[in-house]
């Protein structure tokens, strides 16, 4: 079966972001970018399904400006077979991303679409669910285990109280949680090979979808700073301060 993996280029997870002085957005100029960590897990899962003989082809897709081809090449180096870049200069919200992906799903007809559960920049946790709604497919979100079984896929999900396993009819949408797998590192020969793998560039404007934004960001501000605390010398001092100064224990 064919597996489609949408990926996103985001700020590297180790970078401490700075808000622009005019409060219009965070400052992404000259900041290290990478594949969103959850998307990396999605690519790894798809590649493992291929190695296990379950998947026959792994197609990655990213929506964004030219620069996201760097992350597409990384995904190809990790083992994806080919890629689609849907080019747009604007940053799109989850619903519009899901609508573009819906068109691609219609075109590619994958049996499984694996996405990350959320991107670490917008922290929305929406796109997979929205794509599932638009395509009418069932969804296995926050997956920590994915087992394809005939015309169904069993997905173990990380839920508030522990784990829950659901059975989904294929084709289906899965979104990855951190525990699903440990992504591999791309080896140099694979990085070289990835440069020759097919990458099909499409324009978002050609899909005939109204991509106008659904929400305005009025401002972006830094969070309230916590004032520096004190270092205590002993447990006695700690307990005393918690009781009498902070009054959080009695």
């Amino acid at each position, binding site marked *: 079966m064919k597996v489609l993996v949408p990926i996103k280029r985001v700020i590297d997870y180790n970078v401490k972001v700075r808000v622009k002085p005019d409060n219009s957005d965070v400052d992404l100029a000259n900041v290290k970018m990478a594949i969103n960590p959850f998307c990396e897990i999605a690519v790894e899962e798809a590649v493992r399904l291929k190695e296990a003989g379950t998947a026959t082809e792994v197609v990655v897709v990213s929506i964004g400006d030219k620069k996201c081809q760097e992350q597409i090449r990384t995904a190809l180096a990790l083992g994806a077979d080919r890629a689609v870049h849907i080019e747009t200069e604007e940053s799109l919200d989850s619903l519009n991303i899901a609508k573009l992906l819906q068109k691609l799903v219609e075109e590619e007809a994958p049996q499984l679409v694996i996405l990350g559960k959320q991107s670490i920049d917008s922290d929305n946790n929406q796109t997979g669910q929205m794509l599932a709604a638009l395509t009418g497919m069932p969804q296995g979100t926050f997956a920590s285990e994915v087992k394809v079984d005939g015309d169904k896929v069993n997905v173990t999900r*990380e839920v508030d109280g522990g784990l829950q396993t659901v059975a989904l009819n294929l084709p289906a949408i899965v979104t990855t949680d951190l525990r699903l797998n440990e992504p591999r590192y791309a080896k140099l020969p694979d990085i070289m090979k990835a440069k020759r793998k097919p990458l099909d560039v499409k324009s978002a404007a050609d899909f005939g979808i109204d991509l106008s934004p659904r*929400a305005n960001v009025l401002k972006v501000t830094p969070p309230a700073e916590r004032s520096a605390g004190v270092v205590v010398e002993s447990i006695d001092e700690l307990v005393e301060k918690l009781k009498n100064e902070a009054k959080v224990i009695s």
Partner: protein
Amino acid sequence: MILVYAEHDNSSLKAETLKTVAAAQAIGGDIHLLVAGHNCGAVAEEAAKVNSVAKVLVADNAAYEHQLAENVSLLVTELAADYDTVIATALTTGKNFMPRVAALLDVAQISDIIAVESADTFVRPIYAGNAIATVQSLDAKKVITVRATGFDAVATDGAAEVVAIGTATDAGISSHVSDELTESERPDLGAAPVVISGGRGMQNGDNFKLLEGIADKLGAAIGASRAAVDAGFVPNDMQVGQTGKIVAPDLYIAVGISGAIQHLAGMKDSKVIVAINKDPEAPIFQVADYGLVADLFDALPELESKL
């Protein structure tokens, strides 16, 4: 009119729902609470007592027993026709089905709001809480999930009318197989007034027992960092952070946790933060109100004995 989705486990209403109703109050308008589940009469009774709720809608059907997104989203989308705003708590159930509702309604979803500026303008953290965005929704109908820690719970002194909803929709494309839930006598992590969390420094799962005596004395819930979960010390539902649970207790005690950006995202709105770590350079000390540089294996037994 606002429709709020009640979080529950078919036997009791989750405390977070009371905070989500507070968010609905801030938006303003008649508030209806939807209880979708199976054999969930007790939840409906609790829901009727939630302050400022005008009506409780109960969809009691086997199709909603496990609150599968495919089925619940159809129900909520159908009901949404009568409401200006649909709200759920940003817990795993709400995060699962609400974006599906939003897409079916062809509107954007505003996720994880921590404050309400007006009926169409909301405040939400982005970049693991390192920036706060004020967002104005342009859609006629609003679909919103609420970060419960951003709001104070409403009282439970109401007396709402309870109305049963007859229709049930089973999308027929997914089914529930099994649950593997963590049994615990302790307070729920998301709602506990005190949380004590262990990280990689705990070294193994057995050492988490060192936290239990302290948790018992303080009535605390026990949490963990991603490192502790990934290493298999404790189950995933104990993880506090950007991708785990968001907590904001009165007192948060971080033991053997370095304080990575992703962990801080889940706890830095706690009222008082205590860090116990042997590395004085650990980033956790930059957000801790009280820091103790010590070996946790000495500090924890002593702390327990002195509480």
